[in-house]
């Protein structure tokens, strides 16, 4: 046995010994439990090593990297239009929304602005990818807590939204439709009317979830006062999206200083919840899906006519400079810090993904909770592995 193996062995034995002496007063023995990397409750390959004292978590240590694809490195050898294909795969459930902040950052550096019609369609697709993403969460949260029905409703109704996205972009999951200076194509004929019908379905789905899940006594007792995040702590960990709004922070980039999208021309509301627990996070997301429906309906009514593509060179060279653009994506704030040196490829792109920050709070949050609540808390934080590992 080599030296390294020996030290590893020693470390393992030491950990075992430490486990066994968790609580000397009431003589309980500790235990290390591995949740993941492949576990139905982890949405991918997140592995959490929890040390337990009886049913209580003493420490939780998420281990990632099973799905790291090195996008930040790859962007350095891809042209700007090719990068959108990459970043599509970061949050794969709401992929169109991933493209938008990157395109906006490139547009900011190039000083190009998309024509109004493109901006409106962009916003509609942006919100549709939010619906496609969050609808699945609303169904999935039930499954995590033992209610299987909602997820079937979720998959059933998400299909209609995906069909609408497919009708415009040609892709169900990875549209790759956003271009620097506008959009690849205009809307197909008859799409606007069809979408109105689909939005009605989504609203019905939200009502179903409201009665099936939110009003359910078991669901409430499993989520109320579980995993409470105070606003200040959430902010210092960089939590964003519904996770921070459910802690009472009234902050939404779509309303407060967002660029490039037309949310400020629409009439809608930012929902917050004061509790900061798992229930609040679920409830805020449910309201946000409804709010997205309201937004898309207004867009369908008010969409201006005109071109969908500005005049941009066919070979895109982005002038030297630095830009940081963030948008309110389905999972939270997503931003790209793009550094250009006037080349065909970016010099460096820092991808600020929402789930990375959202999950970084788990070691703090899971300390002291009970094992079944770990699942409820992880589900309610709602992360996508591709968004953590990038």
């Amino acid at each position, binding site marked *: 046995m080599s030296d390294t193996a020996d030290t590893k062995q020693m470390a393992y034995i030491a950990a075992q010994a430490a486990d066994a002496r968790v609580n000397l007063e009431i003589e309980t023995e500790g235990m290390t439990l591995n949740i993941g990397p492949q576990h139905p409750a982890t949405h991918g390959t997140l592995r959490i090593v929890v040390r337990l004292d009886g049913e209580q978590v003493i420490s939780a240590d998420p281990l990632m990297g099973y799905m790291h694809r090195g996008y930040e490195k790859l962007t350095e*050898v891809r042209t700007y239009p090719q990068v959108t294909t990459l970043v599509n795969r970061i949050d794969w459930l709401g992929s169109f929304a991933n493209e938008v902040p990157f395109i906006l950052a490139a547009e900011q550096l190039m000083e190009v602005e998309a024509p109004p019609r493109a901006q409106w369609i962009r916003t509609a697709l942006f919100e549709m990818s939010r619906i496609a993403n969050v609808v699945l969460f609303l169904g999935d949260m039930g499954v995590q807590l033992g209610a299987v029905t909602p997820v079937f409703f979720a998959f059933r109704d998400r299909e209609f939204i995906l069909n609408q996205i497919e009708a415009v972009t040609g892709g169900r999951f990875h549209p790759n439709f956003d271009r620097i200076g506008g959009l690849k194509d205009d809307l197909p004929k008859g799409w606007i009317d069809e979408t109105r019908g689909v939005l009605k379905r989504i609203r019905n789905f939200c009502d179903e979830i409201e009665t099936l899940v939110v009003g359910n006594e078991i669901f409430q007792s499993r989520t109320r006062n579980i995993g409470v995040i105070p606003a200040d702590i959430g902010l210092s960990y960089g939590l964003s999206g519904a996770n921070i709004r459910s802690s009472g922070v009234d902050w939404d980039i779509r309303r407060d200083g967002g660029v490039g999208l037309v949310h400020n021309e629409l009439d809608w509301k930012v929902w917050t919840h004061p509790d900061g627990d798992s229930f609040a996070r679920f409830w805020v997301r449910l309201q946000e899906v409804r709010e997205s429906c309201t937004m898309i309906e207004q867009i369908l009514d008010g969409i201006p006519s005109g071109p969908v593509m500005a005049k941009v060179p*066919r070979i895109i060279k982005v002038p030297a400079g630095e830009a940081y653009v963030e948008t309110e994506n389905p999972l939270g704030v997503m931003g790209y810090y793009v550094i250009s040196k006037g080349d065909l490829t970016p010099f460096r792109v820092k991808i600020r993904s929402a789930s990375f920050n959202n999950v970084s709070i788990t070691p703090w949050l899971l300390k002291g909770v009970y094992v079944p609540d770990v699942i409820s808390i992880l589900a309610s934080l709602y992360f996508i592995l591709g968004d953590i590992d990038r």
Partner: protein
Amino acid sequence: MIQLSSHEETTEEEIEIPKRDDIREDLISKLKDDLGESLVATEIIAEVDVWARVTKEAWLETAQILLTRYNMKYFNFLSAIDWLPSPFGRDMDAQVDQPEPVTPEEMTWGTTGGETRFQLLARVHDPENHLGISLKVDLEDTDLSIESWSSIYPGADWHEREVSEMFGITFLNHPNPVKLYLPGDFEGYPMRKDFALLARRIKPWPGIVDVEDMPGEESEEDEVDA
């Protein structure tokens, strides 16, 4: 049953707010007072963004000041930049059999300038007044270590672990300085510019990066028609 809504502030906001770049100018002038000599360079793009570069000694203090005096409660991200021009030139992104020798380029820096190869880049945000600031700090090649922010912004913990394994920068007083993504015995720092992207070396990539004109296309078609 549950009746909750956001604060409806839209009408208040419309009355009169100072122009965004006034706010940013104000922020910078206050920062100058607070940090003094430690503030090396600043840059403002009106109504878009603001940058500040500080000295390495003042890195921790800057975070403390921004959090306590400027209400920058929101930790956005922390990362690093390697300003070395890629020593591989373009042979990683184009399909070439024989990589051509690359003439070394001069190192150039971006916004707020720089003096060293590595820079840290961080961003914090004020969630109430909707103002964010990007911060940079130079790191000497001979001493790639800096104070950790995790005592001030706990969220910096994971970001610093990522920077540490990807760029080889050491964070002092970090609570848990282990690798985040990479396996424990991984050698090298993948995000450095001189770390070859091996996948490109082993297997030629069919998508040549440089877009060439289609045959028969004139230069007037260089612009996409509306």
